[in-house]
């Protein structure tokens, strides 16, 4: 930080003139302590608290050089009489003295040997969001973030450098492949929405094994280190941030309108394969009237509304040499696009750092969040709206609500979705979460260079959930009996404590040898205890979930419904770690780490593993022979190898389990019995999954650091992968967690930052660009086999491939090939799949690898413009070259809910379907005989590539002079558009939906002719869930 001051010295030269001016930053704020010197002349000066400088200049001086930490060095032409210069500095995209958090310590960026990406709080603030992780989209190479839910405050799926694990379940994969998140040194699990973005100083993402090895068994998936804001020395400052805005849906799912729906139904009867002309789902009398009257109800439009966002945060910060304090209070209130959805979050932050004496320093950081999330009707409202008949009206002729718009049909009990608005008290779902995340530390300077530090973290979360669905509402279609009202209460408790003992020795020997040694001993325990109870038959809607004892029957949610609804789990971790950083002359750097972890979740005898890592860095730019180079301003080569682990397996897997259920022998209570079956075999050999990773990186800066960049290549080999491998069912249990698989990931990541234009009148255009390529493949499977069809793993192929029949069109009338297919016998209009072995039969032998859910590359591009007091940033991101599963295009009648094309029963997405007069090859004929079209799963895989504008932010900073009178030191107002538009998406272009990003998992149809679910069941998919939104916010940041 103080390097620039070292250069300060007063000129003693004879002077003939004095050059004066002011240095300001990109926002027009005075820059204090900038170094000002004259090119080709010795001596320099610094700017004062108002950014002003004055320097004596010889007659022949022509160029002023202004430099400041973190900013691009600026050269300005001067004349001898220049005395009112205004120099605007542009921030440097690559600041080598910037401090990077590396885990159990910090390093200057120039000393870093691992692959680390840093995202500042300011960058995150560009696209305000409830979810901090969401803001990282497209911001760091190799950090692939995909939406995996919809509704307010939904989480995201994060993968750093691809996925390493093999699992058949999306939830297990998420725990196996999700990076470790560490907040202020303490591991942070649970709900990411508990973090208020206004409290975040920076995020550092550790990507390679040498950087993550210090997290040993939890490092394989990368580590996201979040540093929160703390108090700063100086007079008390108060800052206030707020934004307010609207959310609107990106678009509706385009379904058939009234006449189109009637036509679709008519075709499904006409084209009935088994019983031509007949349908179990004819138009009801009401629908026939609707055809006559021209009724065409857009149910989605009736429900979706404009949501609102309001966020406020006020921060007080200050302190003296011995004590610094920071306090903040935040309030977030959002309403959703579905009626009565809302999310409220109150957050409090307190930090105190206190130097007790020259030896001892203590501090605390306490983050407390209280949030309320109302999500009535769940996230599947859209799929219900999609299916409703457009031929019925939401109101009766007399203006009253048409409670049963599908009356007379098979789905007669579907209640009008407008009850979401009109009967809101009977559709209630609330989650209240209280979380307190605390970290305390004490530091003792034992010797001048030797420091002991203890970190104690306590993270406690308590969640109360309550929901109620009254009968005769959209959420509970039990129209016959009020006693079917259901209520549910949940109580989840979780805590984690972490105790870390750290010794750090830091010394520079003989000026050139910089040695840092870190030693750690830590222990961590996680505890979870959940309970969930249901009541059926509540006497009145207003009771809701408030008195379950009034329910007709009460029961605990069974493990079959939700395995963690009633649940207890604890896991422990014991760790020892040592790290040596050695730097010679700022040129040669070496980091060596060893960590040993023991975990309770693994089998005794296999609980411990040691993780070594070594990394080398070479600051080529600091070599003598580079002194005269004019090309590079920074050049550094890094190489590392390390082993990290993954302890993602759930507790108690080494013990095996009986599935538990209940049975009643007869009808009396005497016959009630617990019922067990052996479903999970014990694995007494369960051990660590580990990843060995080699990383080679190059950091460079050219053109006076106006173009800086980082290139990393890596190769990861993961072994002993915890595989929930599918067993032959005839052996009694269908799966077991074992350490069996191997995968490899190779990747290339490029990050570039450039200042494209910087003029002295204050116009700056800078660009950040990153692109990442990850190639994953399975390299080993149990027992040396090469294919594992049930799980969808094939040696040599990515773990995310789709294995199914390949649709090659729709069977057309008169196609001679149709007669050659003997099994199954098909008819024109049905989906035609490839008969790979040409035997005239479609059997599982004809299934093949037909696609991949992993993107070929992910990229982000952020452009920033500033001119005088205006600033504008536009960030885009892209995921390209992958398939996405769209269950509502391909679902069977099981996993994905109502299926597409199901017997012409329900309304559905408007697609180009086959009829005798429309011989398309896109979608099959409607068929009233079929609950799902034959090979319907093949319809659900579509190109999921997209390029999106993530956010646009336009700001204006007021002139400090104007503000000073009001006691305001800075004021910025801004407009933000989040998710404003999609630049490229074949998915959207084809009309499959408004947003190609995911909002759920799986839901894919079983491949017909195979019960294989494989990759589609565990990947993020696009479901007919709550719609994606576009936000427009207006905000202000003010500092006093």
């Amino acid at each position: 930080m103080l390097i620039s001051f070292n250069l300060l010295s007063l000129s003693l030269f004879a002077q003939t003139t004095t050059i004066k001016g002011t240095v300001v930053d990109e926002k027009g704020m005075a820059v204090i302590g900038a170094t000002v010197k004259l090119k080709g002349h010795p001596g320099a000066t610094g700017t004062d608290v108002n950014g002003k400088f004055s320097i004596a200049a010889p007659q022949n001086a022509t160029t002023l050089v202004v430099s400041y930490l973190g900013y691009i060095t600026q050269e300005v032409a001067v004349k001898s009489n220049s005395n009112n210069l205004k120099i605007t500095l542009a921030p440097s995209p690559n600041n080598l003295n910037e401090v990077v958090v590396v885990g159990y310590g910090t390093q200057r960026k120039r000393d870093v040997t691992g692959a680390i990406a840093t995202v500042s709080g300011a960058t995150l603030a560009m696209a305000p969001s409830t979810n901090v992780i969401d803001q990282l989209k497209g911001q760091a190479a190799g950090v692939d973030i995909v939406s995996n839910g919809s509704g307010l405050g939904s989480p995201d799926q994060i993968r750093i450098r691809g996925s390493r694990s093999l699992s058949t379940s999306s939830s297990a994969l998420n725990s196996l492949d999700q990076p470790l998140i560490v907040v202020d040194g303490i591991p942070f699990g649970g709900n990411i929405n508990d973090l208020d973005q206004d409290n975040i100083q920076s995020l550092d993402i550790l990507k390679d094994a040498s950087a993550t090895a210090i997290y040993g068994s939890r490092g394989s998936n990368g580590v996201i280190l979040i540093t929160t804001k703390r108090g700063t020395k100086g007079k008390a400052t108060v800052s206030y941030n707020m934004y307010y805005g609207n959310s609107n849906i990106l678009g509706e799912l385009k379904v058939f309108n009234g006449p189109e729906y009637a036509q679709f139904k008519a075709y499904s009867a006409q084209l009935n394969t088994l019983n031509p002309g007949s349908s179990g789902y004819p138009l009801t009398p009401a629908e026939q009237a609707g055809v006559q009257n021209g009724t065409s109800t857009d149910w989605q439009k009736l429900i979706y509304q404009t949501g609102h966002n309001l966020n406020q945060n006020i921060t007080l910060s200050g302190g003296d040499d011995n004590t610094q304090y920071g306090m903040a209070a935040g309030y977030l209130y959002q309403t959703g696009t579905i009626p009565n959805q809302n999310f409220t979050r109150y957050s409090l932050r307190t930090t105190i750092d206190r130097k007790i004496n020259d030896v001892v320093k203590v501090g605390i950081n306490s983050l407390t969040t209280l949030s309320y999330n109302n999500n009535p009707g769940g996230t599947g409202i859209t799929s219900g709206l999609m299916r409703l008949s457009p031929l019925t009206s939401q109101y009766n002729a007399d203006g009253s609500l048409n409670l049963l718009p599908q009356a007379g049909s098979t789905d007669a009990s579907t209640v009008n979705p407008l009850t979401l608005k009109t009967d809101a008290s009977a559709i209630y779902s609330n989650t209240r979460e209280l979380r307190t995340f605390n970290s305390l530390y004490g530091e003792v300077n034992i010797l001048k260079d030797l420091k002991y530090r203890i970190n104690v973290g306590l993270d406690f979360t308590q969640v109360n959930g309550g929901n109620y669905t009254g009968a005769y509402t959209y959420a509970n279609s039990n129209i016959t009996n009020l006693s079917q009202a259901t209520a549910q209460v949940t109580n989840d408790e979780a805590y984690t404590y972490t105790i870390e003992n750290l010794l750090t020795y830091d010394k520079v020997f003989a000026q050139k040898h910089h040695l840092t040694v870190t030693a750690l001993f830590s222990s961590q325990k996680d505890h979870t205890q959940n309970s969930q109870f249901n009541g059926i038959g509540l006497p009145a809607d207003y009771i809701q979930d408030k008195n379950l004892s009034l329910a007709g029957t009460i029961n605990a949610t069974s493990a079959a419904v939700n395995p963690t609804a009633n649940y207890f789990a604890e896991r422990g971790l014991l760790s020892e770690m040592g790290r040596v950083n050695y730097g010679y002359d700022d040129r040669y750097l070496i980091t060596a780490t060893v960590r040993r972890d023991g975990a309770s979740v693994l089998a005794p005898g296999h609980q411990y593993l040691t993780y070594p890592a070594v990394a080398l860095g070479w600051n080529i730019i600091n070599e003598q022979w580079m002194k005269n180079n004019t090309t590079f301003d920074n050049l550094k080569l890094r190489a590392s190898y390390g082993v990290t682990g993954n302890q993602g397996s759930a507790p108690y897997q080494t013990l095996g389990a009986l599935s538990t259920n209940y049975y009643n022998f007869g009808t009396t209570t005497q016959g009630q019995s617990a019922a067990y079956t052996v479903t999970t075999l014990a694995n007494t050999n369960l051990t660590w999954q580990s990843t060995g990773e080699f990383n080679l990186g190059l950091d460079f800066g050219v053109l006076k650091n106006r173009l800086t960049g980082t290139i990393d290549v890596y190769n990861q080999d993961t072994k002993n992968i915890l595989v929930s491998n599918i067993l032959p069912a005839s052996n009694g249990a269908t799966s077991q967690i074992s350490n069996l698989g191997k995968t490899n990931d190779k990747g290339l990541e490029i990050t570039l930052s450039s200042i494209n234009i910087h003029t002295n009148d204050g116009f700056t255009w800078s660009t950040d660009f990153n692109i990442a390529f990850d190639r994953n493949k399975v390299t080993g499977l149990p027992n040396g086999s090469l294919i594992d069809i049930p799980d969808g793993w094939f040696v040599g192929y990515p773990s995310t491939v789709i294995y199914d029949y390949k649709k090659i069109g729709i069977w057309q009338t008169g196609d001679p090939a149709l007669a050659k297919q003997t099994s199954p016998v098909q008819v024109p209009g049905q989906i035609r799949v490839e008969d790979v072995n040409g035997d005239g039969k479609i059997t599982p032998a004809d299934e093949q690898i037909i696609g991949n859910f992993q993107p070929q590359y992910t990229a982000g591009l952020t452009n920033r413009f500033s001119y005088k007091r205006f600033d504008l940033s536009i960030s885009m991101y892209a995921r390209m070259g992958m398939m996405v599963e769209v269950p509502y295009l391909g679902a069977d009648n099981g996993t994905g809910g109502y299926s597409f094309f199901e017997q012409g029963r329900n309304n559905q997405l408007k697609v180009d379907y086959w009829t005798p007069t429309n011989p398309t090859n896109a979608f099959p004929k409607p068929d009233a005989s079929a609950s799902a079209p034959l090979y319907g799963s093949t319809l659900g895989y579509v190109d999921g590539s997209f390029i999106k504008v993530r956010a646009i932010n336009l700001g204006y900073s007021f002139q400090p002079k104007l503000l000073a009178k009001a006691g305001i030191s800075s004021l910025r107002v801004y407009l933000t558009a989040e998710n404003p538009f999609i630049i490229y998406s074949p998915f959207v272009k084809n009309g499959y939906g408004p947003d190609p990003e995911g909002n759920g998992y799986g839901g894919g149809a079983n491949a017909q002719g195979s019960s294989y679910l494989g990759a589609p069941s565990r990947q993020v998919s696009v479901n007919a869930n709550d719609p994606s939104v576009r936000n427009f916010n207006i905000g202000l940041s003010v500092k006093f």
Partner: protein
Amino acid sequence: MLSVTSCKKILEENPKSIIVPSFLGTPGGIEGGIAGVYNDLRSSYGTEGFELTQYAGTDENLAGVSAQSNGMFSTYNGINGGTFSGFWGTWYQDINTLNGVLKYGPSSGLPAATLNQYLGQAKFLRAFCYYYLVTTYGAVPLHTTFITQATTSDTRAPIASVYNQIIQDLTDASTELPAQVTSPFLGKTATQSAALFMLAKTYLTRGWSSVAQANDFSQAATIASTLITNKATYGVDLWQNYADAFAMANDYGKEALLVSDHDNNTIYGDYTAGASGGNGQNVLPNLFRWNYVTMTSAASDNEETIPVVLNAGGGTSMMFRDVANGRPYSRAMPSPYVFNQVFAERVKDTRYNKTFQLAWIANTTPTGGSNTVIGSPSVTTPRGKLICGVDTAIWMPGYEVTDAQRASFKGVIVTPSQYSPVVFPTTKKFDDLTRTGANDPSTRPRCIIRFAEAYFVAAEAYFKLGDNTNAAKYLNVIRERAAYDPSKSGTQNASDAAAMDIAPGQVTLDFILDEYSREFYNEPRRWNDLVRTQSLLRRVAMYNPQANQYIQAFDVLRPIPQDELNAILSGPPMPQNPGY
């Protein structure tokens, strides 16, 4: 710093919310393991996916308009290892659990007498599982020891070995089990009578099979007839009135030998209000029911439109869906064979009227918990206004009518020539009027073995032994019972019963199969009867126009699930059944 002991403690696991396998070694674990298998039977019997494989693709049923899976099981078009997978895993999971019970049972500390009964249950259930497997798939893997280590290889044992194991287990169970139901296995769990019945049926089945032993049919005949002779010992018998076999009050009565329990308790009964199906939900009453709601008052004007286009021409629905009339799935309709041949006799043989619902009484839409009436309280056709609860809205007389008869009937008449995949007489044997919601699944038990079948096993075995006299004797018991109607006079009943009797010369295989249909129509089991008697191909060709164009010789065995074949990752690959 933490002390060393507390450090070590942090790495110990103490589960508190799961049951681990060693629990099987406790008395509670032994009982629970047996209950677990009964619970798995419940997740098969009564559910749509399982029952479908029992009734579809036979001479008795054609695909209804809402037949699932493209009617694949109705037509055999496209059945392969991928499309047929459902229950294999469940049965083997049960077998392994039972092997665990049999392994740990002797050391569980249960008193000897109790233990014996528990082991009898386990052996009965293991045999029951293998019987299903061997008759469905042919040669199957045979495991009789508890598997605790995961392996990725397995082989199919010879059919003969599987039958030997079944006979061994049932022979043991027939003495170890109690003669009558005993706590804690209440309801209608396995007893000696169930074990003897299954033993007789196993001999009968093996007698027909490729691994037949010389005395199989005589064993079957002897065991079945002995069981019938000693029925009082086991507390089993036929009801005098065929209808009583399906009365809710008799679900656990003397004619039920083994049932799969369902219960409206959401915990012990797996019950979910409004459930459309799935684990443990008994939807059997829904499967064979046509969607009576789609018949409109206007449709009745034009009888020609009835067969295929419901809701035609507007008007209003003749019926609302209610508990009494049930939830319609339209999965299967009776084939013409059922009306023309099976139930040709409908006067002396009362089973036609006791099997089918043929009239629908005008009702109102129930809502709001009480009997609040919304919408129209009744329906008016061009022939008059129907009074709710009194007038018949829809009637299937079972014969053709004249235009004049139609004109004089206020509701709609549907005659046999109008039966179609959307309109057909509904099987009423499983109706459950105790449900609270019209869409709720049934909580009646699904009867797996009905004592009447013992007479058929005896008759079929004697027939195969060439002893038609005894075959006719046992069939006549069933046929005489079928004549009984409490509303008839004693003499009328006696003379009808006598008229139902057949002579030994009339006993043929086809006659026995027709009689099975008369007695057991839509108590899902037909596919197995036809396969056992090597009659599937012949009878489908004769009576099922939908399936006869697709069925092939190999369809008498179901394909091994592709999942199983794919999961064999070591050792020799497991061969698929031929043809698939």
